[in-house]
């Protein structure tokens, strides 16, 4: 039996270059910076290679879930960090990370090119890398005859009954951003009334963006039954038909701004190299790369957007946002209130 099986198994293991036998420990003297990121992190491999050629630093990305999960992991391991730099803590979770002392101070020279507009704290521990606005998206064709909705309030109009699908703020980050957008618009006292109206008008709630956008929304390839969905300002850039016209559109008066930050972790093994990586993320080349790679807008000023974006997905001029500290203090209670109201 062994005479037959062992060679086969060995050959299989060799063929697939089984990683047990190929450890990827850095060579001695190699400079490695571990970059803890959220799951959506992506950059063109050439940029990472060029950075290595220019500085001698290898960036080793390590994904840690969505923004919330990643923040909690950083807090849990703040005394012995799992990396040197973190990217992807967003405005919703930034206060928690700052309060827990996860990040170290660093004044990046690149931060004065636009990132400073989103600065959270005077000592500057977090630097804005990109901006992702969550807005209502509509299927343009569905509103030819009845006129497009423009504001949050329009969605409570019986004319638009059973047309809206949103994500659960407890399980989805765009869902949470949309809830925060309605709180920023209607105020802490009146947002519940608005949601009561949405409920009466047949809003559908699903767990995640994938279900909402690819299944229930009529403007995506899923061709679902509902023409209004909570998605991103950038989503229409991916829905341009062969004739060059966008099939969907973001309603620019219904946007909530989420900024994603990067910073050097307290206790980073090699401070200097970690700082270089932060500079790199804020630099011209990465900033030009983020729209195509992560469907978000650069924080740096004067960076040209890809052509499809200028046509279908301009950066919303007047996005709302709530102060990070207010979100941190009330998030759990708001989500609980929302659950009782919308699903109770």
């Amino acid at each position, binding site marked *: *039996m062994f005479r*037959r*099986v062992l060679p*086969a*198994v060995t050959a299989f293991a060799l063929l*697939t*270059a*089984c*990683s*047990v036998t190929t*450890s*990827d420990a850095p060579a001695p003297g190699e400079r490695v910076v*571990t970059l803890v*990121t959220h*799951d*959506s*992190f*992506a950059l*063109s*491999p050439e940029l*990472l290679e060029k950075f290595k050629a220019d500085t001698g630093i290898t960036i*080793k990305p*390590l*994904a840690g*879930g*969505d923004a*919330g*999960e990643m923040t*909690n*992991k950083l807090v*849990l*391991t703040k005394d012995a960090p*799992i*990396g040197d730099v973190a990217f992807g803590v967003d405005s919703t979770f930034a206060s*928690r990370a700052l309060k827990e002392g996860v990040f170290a101070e660093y004044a990046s020279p690149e931060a004065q090119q636009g990132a400073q507009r989103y600065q959270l704290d005077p000592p500057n521990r977090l630097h804005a890398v990109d901006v992702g606005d969550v807005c209502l998206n509509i299927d343009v064709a569905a509103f030819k005859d009845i006129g497009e909705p423009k504001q949050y309030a329009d969605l409570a109009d019986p004319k638009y009954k059973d047309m809206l699908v949103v994500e*659960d703020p*407890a*399980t989805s980050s765009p869902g949470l951003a949309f809830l925060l957008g309605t709180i920023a618009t209607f105020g802490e006292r009146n947002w519940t009334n608005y949601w009561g109206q949405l409920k009466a008008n047949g809003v559908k709630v*699903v*767990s*995640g*963006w*994938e*279900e909402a956008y*690819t299944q*229930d929304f009529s403007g*995506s*390839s*899923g061709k679902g039954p509902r023409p209004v969905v909570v998605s991103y300002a*950038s*989503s229409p850039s*991916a*829905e341009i*038909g062969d004739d060059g016209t966008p099939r969907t559109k973001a309603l620019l008066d219904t946007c909530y701004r989420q900024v994603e930050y990067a910073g050097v972790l307290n206790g980073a093994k090699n401070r200097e190299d970690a700082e270089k990586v932060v500079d790199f993320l804020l630099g011209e080349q990465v900033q030009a790369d983020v729209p*195509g*790679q992560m*469907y978000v807008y650069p924080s740096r000023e004067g960076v040209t957007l890809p052509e499809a974006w200028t046509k279908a997905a301009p950066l919303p001029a007047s996005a709302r946002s709530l102060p990070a500290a207010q979100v941190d203090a009330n998030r*759990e209670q708001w989500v609980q209130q929302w*659950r009782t109201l919308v*699903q109770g």
Partner: protein
Amino acid sequence: MTPRPTTRLSPRSAWALAALLPLAFLGVFFAWPVLAIVGLGLGEGGVLPVLARADTWDLVGFTLGQAAAATALALVAGLPVAFLLARCRVRGAGLVRAAVMVPFVLPTVVVGLAFRALWPDGGVLPIVLANAFFNVAVVARTVGGLWARVDRRAEDAARALGASRSRAFTSVVLPSLAPAIGSAASVVFLFCATSFGVVLVLGGARHRTLETEIYLRTVELFDLSGAAALSLVQFVAVIAVLVVGALARRKREKSLSLRVEPPRRPTGGEWGVVVAAWLVVAALLAPVAGLIARSLATDDGWSFAGYAALAGTGERGTLAVSGLDAALNSVRTATDATLVALLVGVTSAVVLVGLRRHGSWFAETLDTALMLPLGVSAVTLGFGYLVTMDALPGDFRTSPLLVPLAQALVVTPLIVRIVLPVLRAVDERLRQAAATLGASPWRVWREVDLPLASRSLLAAAGFGFVVALGEFGATSFLARPDAPTLPVVIARLMSRPGELNSQMAYAACALLMVVTTAAVLVIERLRVPSGGEF
């Protein structure tokens, strides 16, 4: 003959010593991290209020209820398939063997969406169906492995004595399959009780289980004490189920007369079972066909654009590596996990059999302990790694070795469950005869147990490999964006707008299915020629 100095270990101590490997593995990579994170939560207090809340018990009820329903359904659907695979010489059996494994590797979000397409509002029925869909393979494999070995002559004798076909089945066949059915049921139950993605997609916020709630509290709310309280509840529920399963097994475990039973053409009423099995296979492949259709469908007819893009790094280079490289990464990780799990799993199975022969409560305990990782939330384990693994040399929290080790935790119990019923059923008299003729214990094991168990060993390896291929919890926890596996690539593509990204996501699913089928076929090829020894 002079007596030799007795420095040799007594058989029982030798077994106990061999048990150290699985125990150490479980201790370091499971018990320690889980206890650490739960302990951290308990330290914050607030556990009793969680236990006092009525909705906690609703969660428990729904979790166990949907798992029980899905387990029953998987058993009903899986048994005919097991019969087909074990007993029938029909065309395409090899392909069926591979095909029933396919659902196992599909990412839960994809399966959730496929079932949601049929039940747009989600609910309990699609949750149960989707969980059963994943687990038919467990039943078919675990039960089929033993069924292929059960001596037909007893059954034939019963028929000759005038028993009807169904009577022969219920009085002769079913009792001898009971250990494997019990094993399969407990594994499926644990998988369903801790199923996460399916419940999230199909349950929305209306139907929540302990698993989804633990995830939410750990990851989004950072309420470690609430999560710890629920983890304890989950743990107690799981142990209760395992103890019931162990008691059920205990009554039934016995030596069967095992032989290599060549499959034969079905006769008479057996065709009914074969038809039922084919219907189950068709039902399993329907969602799969749907996925393939989605990978080809565009606004203007069919196109291979998704596959073409996957061969490279996607539209505008949206993937760090090509789909093919991701497939290779998947195969590598799964190979590592399978090798680790085989080492631990086979050692455990051998130890358990040995201990059982010497009659020992310790065997029961070890057997149950090995199953525990299936019943504990992946996120609890993952966060547990974060707070413990830095104590190991080389900061193990971010070591690439942690992924195969974490996956091996899930694969090991499956291997034990598949191999153990067969090893336990080996007739002691054969072993005694070999020993009387002067064979050493090692040689008895090599010449008697191994040939009889070899087929189920390979089946277990193939199964473990497939589970590791599709495993997402541990992989995503330590995902290396620069070396993503296929499930990670699929998740990434699913979360992007645009027709092409969606096509690529489904094309990546198709690739994952092809890799799975190929892997199962290759592993099945390693089949040892083992006819005619007995």
